[in-house]
């Protein structure tokens, strides 16, 4: 199993957001073989895409991660140094305090690796109904610093959303790295022992299935049934819901698609599976993404492509203004086909 390195450490052109955007605008999209996303929106009377009520502030605490997964759209890894400061976290808290935002969704990298992770959670907790942490699970097993994390997470009633691309080591480790499956199972057992995934505990852990290759996910409910059965029977593990998330052609997954000559077929698959019904629930309508340096984006994927928010809106969390933001036009590009393919895809799984 070849070790995955970040695109940045490989000095790959695709580590630059502008190179990815350029690539996604060329080839089949510039020579007319494939439709442009915004034209398809127009065909379905959905252009420009406008936001609904802001429900979730998704905050990226930094790109550092203890894992280097093959499909990572963040190009996260141990060598990434971008990290959110306490001052920017305070700006996020000020915004949720004064704007009635129900949920904050902490992501990364491994958000727990931000040295101010606990401070942020404790200071934000009184002002939101729900804190989601997108945890890779293995961070709990990474070293002594993180051994107490499960207790802290449970105490703050954090909802965990954790990647487990399959219920066996073979597929999981091929995507996420050698030994990840076993460590994830150990972490899940610890979390189950604290009540996570157990009925009436009030502690929720949802798992995320990302396809381990250049294909779309199977129907979410069907996979969830299978995951629940096998994880219970073979490992005595329980969880709440399974979210199926389509891999978007960004960063390391884009690199994988190109290197394996799957790029065009995959893009056509996304385009031909375009489902206008999924448009109503796309997460950019109800979520706003905050970059590690406080920059605002329509979603985490736009953040990685550095596709900035509507120029008529505030660009940073420090100048947040809900009235201006609710009138913005959502910035889209060809990667958006990933969120509207088949049953649709969002950070909360399928949309229809």
């Amino acid at each position, binding site marked *: 199993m070849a070790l995955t390195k970040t695109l940045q450490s490989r000095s790959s*052109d695709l580590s630059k957001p502008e190179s990815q955007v350029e690539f996604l605008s060329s*080839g089949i999209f510039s020579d007319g073989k494939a439709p442009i996303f915004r034209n398809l929106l127009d065909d379905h009377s959905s252009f420009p895409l406008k936001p609904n009520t802001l429900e979730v502030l998704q905050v990226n605490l930094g790109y550092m991660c203890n894992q280097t997964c093959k499909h990572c759209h963040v190009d996260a890894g141990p060598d990434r140094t971008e990290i959110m400061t306490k001052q920017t976290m305070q700006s996020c808290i000020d915004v949720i305090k004064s704007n009635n935002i129900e949920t904050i969704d902490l992501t990364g990298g491994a958000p727990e690796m931000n040295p101010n992770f606990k401070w942020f959670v404790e200071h934000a907790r009184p002002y939101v109904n729900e804190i989601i942490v997108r945890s890779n699970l293995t961070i709990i097993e990474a070293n002594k610093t993180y051994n107490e994390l499960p207790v802290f997470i449970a105490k703050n009633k954090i909802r965990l959303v954790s990647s487990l691309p399959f*219920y066996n080591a073979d597929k999981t480790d091929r995507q996420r790295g050698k030994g990840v499956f076993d460590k994830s199972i150990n972490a899940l057992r610890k979390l189950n022992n604290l009540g996570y995934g157990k009925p009436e505990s009030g502690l929720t852990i949802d798992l995320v299935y990302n396809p381990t290759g250049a294909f779309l996910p*199977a129907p979410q409910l069907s996979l969830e049934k299978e995951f629940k059965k096998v994880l219970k029977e073979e490992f005595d593990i329980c969880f709440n819901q399974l979210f199926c998330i389509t891999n978007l052609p960004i960063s390391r997954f884009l690199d994988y698609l190109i290197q394996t000559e799957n790029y065009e077929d995959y893009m056509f698959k996304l385009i031909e599976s375009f489902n206008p019904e999924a448009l109503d629930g796309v997460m950019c309508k109800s979520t706003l993404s905050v970059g590690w340096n406080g920059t605002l984006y329509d979603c985490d994927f736009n953040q990685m492509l550095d596709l900035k928010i509507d120029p008529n809106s505030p660009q940073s969390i420090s100048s947040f203004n809900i009235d201006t933001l609710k009138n913005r036009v959502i910035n889209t590009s060809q990667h958006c086909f990933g969120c509207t393919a088949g049953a649709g895809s969002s950070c909360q799984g399928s949309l229809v």
Partner: protein
Amino acid sequence: MNRSFRMLVSISKNRKFNIRMGVYYESNDLRKFGKIADYDKELADKFFDWYGAVFEEGALTAREKALIALGVSHAVQCPYCIDAYTEESLKFGINKEQMMEAVHVASAIRGGASLVHSVQMMNKVNKQEM
């Protein structure tokens, strides 16, 4: 655009989408399956409705149906179906060993279907030969 980026672009441009007469199976033709309606919409619609209903979850799961379809694809030697149901199997997390076993089941039935006809050959031999 530097050299390695140009190379990436050229990899993606290198794929052929033209009609190539004399080539019997083009993997891209699978994407045109829906176009059979251009010649007979009514029958195509009936076929695709029925096809969709067949693969819905029922007494068998969609996963089980994908594996059956993969085996049958090999028995009828349809390259489009093999592509489609290998991918469908991957979506459901069906592993390589399971896929290969399904192909062996289909092949065993196919081989057995030929071999069992040898009983007819034997009957004929036994009847006609002194």
